[in-house]
């Protein structure tokens, strides 16, 4: 047993080498895919945020001398049927659309995560009730509900701002609940009980950070869905009211001249595509990237 005592001293040489590079914080820890995605989104967000500074023309500045002129250096995306600069309008539209999309994606997220986390942690009848409510919300046709809200509050972005979060929290609740079912069985959650933490502390401080990953990854996809929803509603004339620009309404305007002046509808549409690609890359990159600090 004396050999044991000798071994008892701290084993300095046996210490593992800490992988320094994995400690990299912020962007350096992300995969290339996620970096490209984040870069694309950053450019779009900046373009939207700085629209009043970088737009060469006002979003509603009419110019009847240059009706439907093709893309050129003075009009990067050409002009529409009333001579408005499509590039400027797209920038302003991006500003409005991104603000709405971020709102309708990230307001319901914490609510849904919280509801799902609590339901998943406690299980039983509470879980049954919450799960049936989320099922109902998700089963309900999304677009129909949003249009119904718009029918009540009137056309404009208000309908989207109210209608989408009413339903969207349910998706996060379901995701967070299923993740919680896994997390609550982990020994470190047993440890929170064994250490005498309150249930509130165990859920909020110890489990929820473990649920956030998949919810944040899902939210990048959700943003694209919401942006497309917004564009569809604007295309139908239920979004921002003229003359204010939204990507969907610019596309709807350009549709009539699609054959003679393709740029009016196509180029703002491309911006939508680029946003989708950017968000998709970010989501993919996050889900298999280095951010995985878990027990795997």
């Amino acid at each position, binding site marked *: 047993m004396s050999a044991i005592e000798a071994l*008892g001293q701290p084993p300095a040489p*046996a210490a593992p080498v800490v992988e320094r590079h994995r400690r990299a914080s912020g962007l350096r820890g992300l995969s290339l895919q996620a970096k490209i995605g984040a870069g694309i989104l950053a450019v779009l967000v900046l373009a939207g945020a700085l629209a009043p500074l970088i737009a060469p023309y006002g979003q509603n500045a009419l110019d009847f001398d240059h009706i439907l002129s093709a893309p050129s250096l003075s009009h990067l995306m050409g002009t529409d049927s009333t001579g408005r600069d499509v590039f400027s309008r797209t920038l302003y539209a991006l500003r409005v659309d991104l603000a709405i999309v971020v709102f309708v994606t990230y307001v319901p997220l914490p609510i849904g995560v919280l509801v799902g986390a609590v339901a998943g942690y406690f299980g039983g009848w509470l879980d049954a009730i919450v799960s049936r409510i989320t099922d109902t919300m998700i089963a309900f046709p999304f677009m129909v509900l949003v249009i119904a809200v718009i029918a009540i509050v009137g056309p404009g972005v208000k309908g989207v701002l109210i209608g989408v979060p009413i339903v969207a929290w349910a998706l996060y609740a379901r995701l967070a609940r299923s993740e919680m079912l896994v997390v609550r069985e982990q020994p470190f959650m047993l*440890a929170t009980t064994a*250490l*005498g933490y309150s249930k509130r502390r165990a859920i909020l401080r110890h489990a929820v*950070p473990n649920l956030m990953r998949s919810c944040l990854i899902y939210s990048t996809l959700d943003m694209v869905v919401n942006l497309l929803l917004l564009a569809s509603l604007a295309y139908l004339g239920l979004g921002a009211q003229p003359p204010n620009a939204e990507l969907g309404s610019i596309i709807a305007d350009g549709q009539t001249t699609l054959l003679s002046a393709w740029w009016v509808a196509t180029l703002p549409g491309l911006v939508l595509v680029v946003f989708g690609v950017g968000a998709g890359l970010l989501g993919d990159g996050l889900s298999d990237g280095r951010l995985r600090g878990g027990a795997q």
Partner: protein
Amino acid sequence: MNPLLTIEGLRVEFGPADAPLVAVDGAALSIGPGEIVGLIGESGSGKSLTCRSVMRLVPRPGRVAAGHIEFDGRDVLAMTPQQLRDFRAHEAGMIYQDPFSSLNPVFRVRDQLSETLRANLGMGKAQARTHAVALLDGVGIPDPERRALSYPHELSGGMRQRVMIALATASQPRLLLADEPTTALDVTTQAQILSLLTRLREERGMSVLLVSHDFGVIAQVCDRVAVMYGGHVVETGPIGALYDNAQHPYTHALLDSVPRLESAGRATRRPGIAGVPPELNEVLPGCVFKPRCRYAQPSCESVSMALQPVAPGHETACPVRPLAAADGRPAARAGAQT
């Protein structure tokens, strides 16, 4: 000396109340202040459940159906949720087998430790952080300031178990429940963790309940041992008495199956124990070990499994005591370690 923890007649059941599966049946155990007690048994013998019962952490749908657990004069099974939280936070700590998932992967080591210091001891943020580093130092983690900033996945299994021990003992509990703390570790690390437990016992007078299925581990650190089989404690006594003078045929057979140093190099087979442990739904009359016992007699079907004293501090559940006969056991057993 009054025991710190007493378990009496503990019964843990699963399944329906009218046809329960009994995982622990009438287990009895006591731990004195500053004592390290080993709890040994095969897989499924109920040792982990007994250990978890003390913390009232029997996994659902299992339940403590009967019995009495007393910690320092207080009835653990009758505690209110608030008392229970307080008991878990300050009086008893628990560590367990899997150091790979017992730390939250999203927190740095320092933050996990300071979390418990702030939640349970009411420390401020800065104080907790400083104290966390001191705790890491206390469990023998080299370069604690740097390690404190690591995430759990950056540490080795032994390191994680040390962090876990630091976490469980942060609020200076009087009892540490160690549920197979070394099973997932290699032998060298195992020895270090065990000597850390002994050191903590000496420094703080902390009692330890060490659950293991390894006689080698138990022999290294324990003062007393309880042997479990089929949900019953079949024998308990000081480590030396158990090794030299095992009274229960199961203990004896278990010790016999451990390879001995004397037989090293010789192609000897260790005798196994014939048969398999009882299923949870098997209700055996009398002694649970009877179907596998070499000395079984017809009367074994009607005996009680209650512990009976053999010598001071040494009790066995075998009333037949075939090993008490004069032939005795060779004293050489003391060298039997894995």
